[in-house]
């Protein structure tokens, strides 16, 4: 019951709804006005529905049966898919790992972890090659643009807005009693200071709901304009999909596990929810420690800024450089590489899961410490 009352406090805050509506409007505006060039991807999706997403002989036959179109989409897709080859065959990812080690001038334990990571990835690459995983349609020649646009741009905006929202609504809830002068009444009730636990669960729940609201409208608009229905079953490691960095240039999009586009989308959504919850947990710890919510929000912002600056300040020869890349804000920055080897920026495999777990544990310890501190604080 108290949990619902806490949620009601948030629901009764017009500024929160105003913020969410502005974010939704902003996302929809960007999605609608951005030059999507959706004609070709939508055609590919319609082909995927009929001909499947595996690039084999039957796919070519079914594609050939499609009526010719004035835009030349069919001819373009036929050319692209006819030229498709297994990009994982003879793909030497260990050599790419060596380049990353060279850039950081890394040695000792760091170089060893890098080498182990890329040796493991090479094994997986070989299995992908054996399974012809890259012979998958995705969006054909439009794959790179659409993959970047969905998992880079749309998820980037969505997650940043959700993180801000999570932080603010958590601080709002934790500062609510003080700002409404109900602190003494609330904490002298039967629930007492255990109220904080209810506030925490309400904050995390509300943060996830806010993420959900933002996601439903923003992604709904995106998927209305860009038809993904025919390619959900396609492999995300399609030969058309690439990842890019300054050191290795363009290279195949290689994940630790085989993902369909739908599976990858759901996995990214899961990580996003985890990051939102982690930010909410951190904000809760700050909100309990500091009674001034304004300063609290500044601390949250500064902490995240520090996590971005620290890897620049520390060389890639030190572990501390890579530890900061596991922070939620850095994970946000690396969103386009989730579930991949992470390029030169990350040291450990499955960095997004590791980062999420490490942030979760760290923030939980912070929160428990803050809670303990609060339990002894004289509120009168």
């Amino acid at each position, binding site marked *: 019951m108290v949990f619902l009352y806490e949620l009601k406090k948030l629901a009764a*805050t017009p*500024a*929160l709804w*105003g*913020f969410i509506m*502005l*974010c939704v409007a*902003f996302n929809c505006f960007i999605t609608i006005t951005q030059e999507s060039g959706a004609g070709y991807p939508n055609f590919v999706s319609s082909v995927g529905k009929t001909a499947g997403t595996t690039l084999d002989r039957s796919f070519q036959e079914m594609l050939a049966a499609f009526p010719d179109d004035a835009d030349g989409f069919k001819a373009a897709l036929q050319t692209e898919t006819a030229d498709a080859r297994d990009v994982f065959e003879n793909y030497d990812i260990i050599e790419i790992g060596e380049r990353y080690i060279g850039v950081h001038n890394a040695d000792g334990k760091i170089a060893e972890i890098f080498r182990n990571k890329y040796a493991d990835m090479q094994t997986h690459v070989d299995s992908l090659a054996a399974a012809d995983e890259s012979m998958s349609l995705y969006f054909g020649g439009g794959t790179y643009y659409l993959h970047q646009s969905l998992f880079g741009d749309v998820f980037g905006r969505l997650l940043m807005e959700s993180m*801000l929202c999570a932080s*603010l609504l958590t*601080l*709002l809830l934790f*500062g609510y009693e003080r*700002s409404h002068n109900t602190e003494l009444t609330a904490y002298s009730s039967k629930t007492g200071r255990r109220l904080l636990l209810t506030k925490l669960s309400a904050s995390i729940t509300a943060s996830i709901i806010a993420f959900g609201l933002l996601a439903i409208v923003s992604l709904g608009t995106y998927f209305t304009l860009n038809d993904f229905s025919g390619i959900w079953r396609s492999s995300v490691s399609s030969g058309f999909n690439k990842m890019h960095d300054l050191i290795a240039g363009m290279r195949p999009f290689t994940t630790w596990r085989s993902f369909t586009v739908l599976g990858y989308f759901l996995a990214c959504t899961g990580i996003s929810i985890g990051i939102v919850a982690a930010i909410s947990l951190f904000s809760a710890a700050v909100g309990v420690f500091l009674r*001034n*919510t*304004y*300063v609290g*929000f*500044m*601390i949250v*912002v*500064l902490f995240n*800024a*520090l996590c*971005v*600056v620290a890897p*620049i*300040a520390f060389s890639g020869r030190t572990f501390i450089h890579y530890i900061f890349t596991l922070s939620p804000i850095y994970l946000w920055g690396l969103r386009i590489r989730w579930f991949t080897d992470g390029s030169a920026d990350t040291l450990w495999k499955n960095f997004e899961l590791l980062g999420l777990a490490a942030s979760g544990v760290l923030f939980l310890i912070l929160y428990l410490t803050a809670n303990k501190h609060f339990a002894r604080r004289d509120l009168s």
Partner: protein
Amino acid sequence: MRILLLEMKKIWRGRILLLVALLCGLYSVLFMDFYVGHISITDHPGAETTELAGYMLDHYGATLEPDEFDEFMRLRPQFVAEANQYIAEMPVFRDAGIYNYDDIVVLSQNLERSEAEERAYWVLGMEQCNYVGYRIQAIDSIAENYTSFGTRINTMLYDEPLTASEQIRVREIVSLKEYYSVFPDIIEYTKDYFKYLAVLCVLTSLILTSPLVTLDRARKMNQLQYASATGRGILTRQLFATLISSLLLTLILFVIFGLLFTRAGTMKFLRCDINGFIGNSFTHIPITYGGYIGVLLVLSLVAAIASSALAFVFSRFSDSLVTLIFKLIPFFVAVDLVSVLLVFNRPLMIGTSNALTDFGLYAILLFIGVAVAALALRRERRVDI
């Protein structure tokens, strides 16, 4: 006056100032240091071009007349001799079959180089050869730009969609010999640096000044204030305190980040007209580098003050600091979009901006900010609490 000072004291709190200082430090590392470094260190042969422009400024003044150009070009044989000396001394060149600078020129036209040739080709531009390769590239580029300026302008007149007034202005740059200016091609980096400074000014002004009214309202102090002898006139003083604080903070940031910008080593060009032959950007009006920086600073100042005025209104309608932040974030994003995408994109530049739009947008922002704040004050005087 006493109340104004007391209100300012409420704004300039130590804890917030400390956080603002930390934010400025992190922001500077993240967004601004790059541009200072880019001008002076990392961009080749840009850094060498800037260095040679400095040489021209020291030896011939702010403009380079044709006879001075001939004298300046005598540097090239010296650079080539220096390159030849490195080529003779370093084995990396011998291994690639390179024995003088002419061989490097031949190599530069050959796209299929062996590994040894590739290594030798790049070594001449590196630190161990004192960047002499880049210095030669820079002086060649300067010579090309100086001698072909007329052709470049003609191409610009025929190929680019310029308005009639822009065409007149471009011809004026030639006829008034503004293009003799030795100003290097550093406008983009300068503009980007000051664009981020403008964003920082807006951000810090909002952080510092916006809680003033909200805090009073959250503590129900406003009722006490309204019942005092000053009455609701306190709001006018609070608005002035907000605007003055924003002005002061912005000026402090100008001093700090202006001093940091001097690390780029471009301050010596302050008196040079920016429509010089080295660069590719031309302005709607004849303006020096110092004048251009001045314009960027004025735009930043206006943005910061206008934002503070509008934030004052938001703070009047917020009952807690968190709800205030909920309003400030979209507002900050909107101001940034106007600043970054429109006004600070390429202010005053021919072909990409309109001088009227540049200043008009910020004038409108300032007007809206102050007008809405004044309206809010007027409304507050009449509201029954």
